[in-house]
């Protein structure tokens, strides 16, 4: 079990830079046990929250109330199915990257993020001279052609605000595990 400091309200930003962080969620030991018990998935039984409650020695009402609260405060983004995008035929994933003026990036980023095929959109720092791009938009398609058409649409939306761009395709998955907190 990691120390309590990992979960205490400590608003220090990662690396000392970046957007002001929202105050951290206050999680107690029971929340933590609930997270550890569900980060691999929900039980596939007719009363899954009841099953979790029994496993944790809690009342089902308590488990449900805590999950609702965690959803409300954003510790849980959503509850549902995570598809393997390769299995759904989305074999091309392109990280499209754009160099736009810092003063314009928020308006542009919001607009790009609204495009239906963009799954993630972020403002990130440049690393000059190697990396002039500050707007990252992840796109997924059933082939490179589809991704290229999507990238073109982003380019059209940015218009003259785009000073340079590139698309980095993933050619190999080297590792994919996701974060697991300790139990």
């Amino acid at each position, binding site marked *: 079990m990691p120390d309590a400091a990992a979960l205490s*309200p400590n608003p220090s930003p990662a690396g000392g830079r*970046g957007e002001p962080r929202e105050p951290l969620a206050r999680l107690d030991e029971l929340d933590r046990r609930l997270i550890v018990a569900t980060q*691999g998935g929900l039980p596939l039984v007719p009363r899954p929250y009841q099953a979790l409650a029994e496993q944790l020695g809690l009342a089902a009402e308590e488990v449900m109330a805590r999950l609702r609260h965690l*959803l409300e405060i954003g510790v*849980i*983004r959503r509850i549902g199915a995570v598809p393997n995008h390769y299995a759904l035929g989305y074999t091309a994933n392109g990280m499209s990257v754009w160099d736009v003026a810092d003063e314009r990036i*928020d308006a542009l980023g919001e607009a790009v993020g609204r495009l239906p095929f963009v799954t993630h959109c972020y403002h990130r720092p440049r690393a000059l001279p190697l990396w002039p791009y500050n707007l990252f938009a992840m796109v997924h398609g059933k082939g490179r052609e589809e991704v290229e058409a999507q990238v073109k649409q982003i380019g059209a939306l940015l218009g003259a605000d785009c000073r340079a761009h590139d698309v980095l395709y993933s050619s190999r*998955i*080297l590792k994919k595990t996701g974060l697991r907190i300790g139990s």
Partner: protein
Amino acid sequence: MDETDRRIINALQGGFPICDDPYREVADKLGLSETELIARLQRLLEEKTLTRFGPMYQVERMGGAFVLAALAVPEAEYECVAETVNGLPEVAHNYRREHALNMWFVLATETPEGIPAAIEKIERATGLTVYAFPKLKEYFVEMKLHA
């Protein structure tokens, strides 16, 4: 994967109910029995069409940190560096991408301080510079794909 599987995947990428009989509630909406829905979810997970089914946690709201980072790895050292980088528990994903920066990975740690520590470990082990791209602002994140 048949039409019913697709309907399940499209309907269940969020909003799974928190109630006594959530599978039954969803099954009713999809015109399935609860047993069939559970059996199909089980199979979709076994076949790896779904990677998970359950709550998706946001690490940063729990005090953890996520940072995208990249390395420019000389081709001759690529496999060796990949092994070193993948060996770190802080590395959640790692992809080869075609660019001078040809290895892109996500560092996920339980505290913000874990990020610089992981970067230092990688730099020491590989002798390469880690380029970190922490997010300055998130405009949109919704990994929902149509089945």
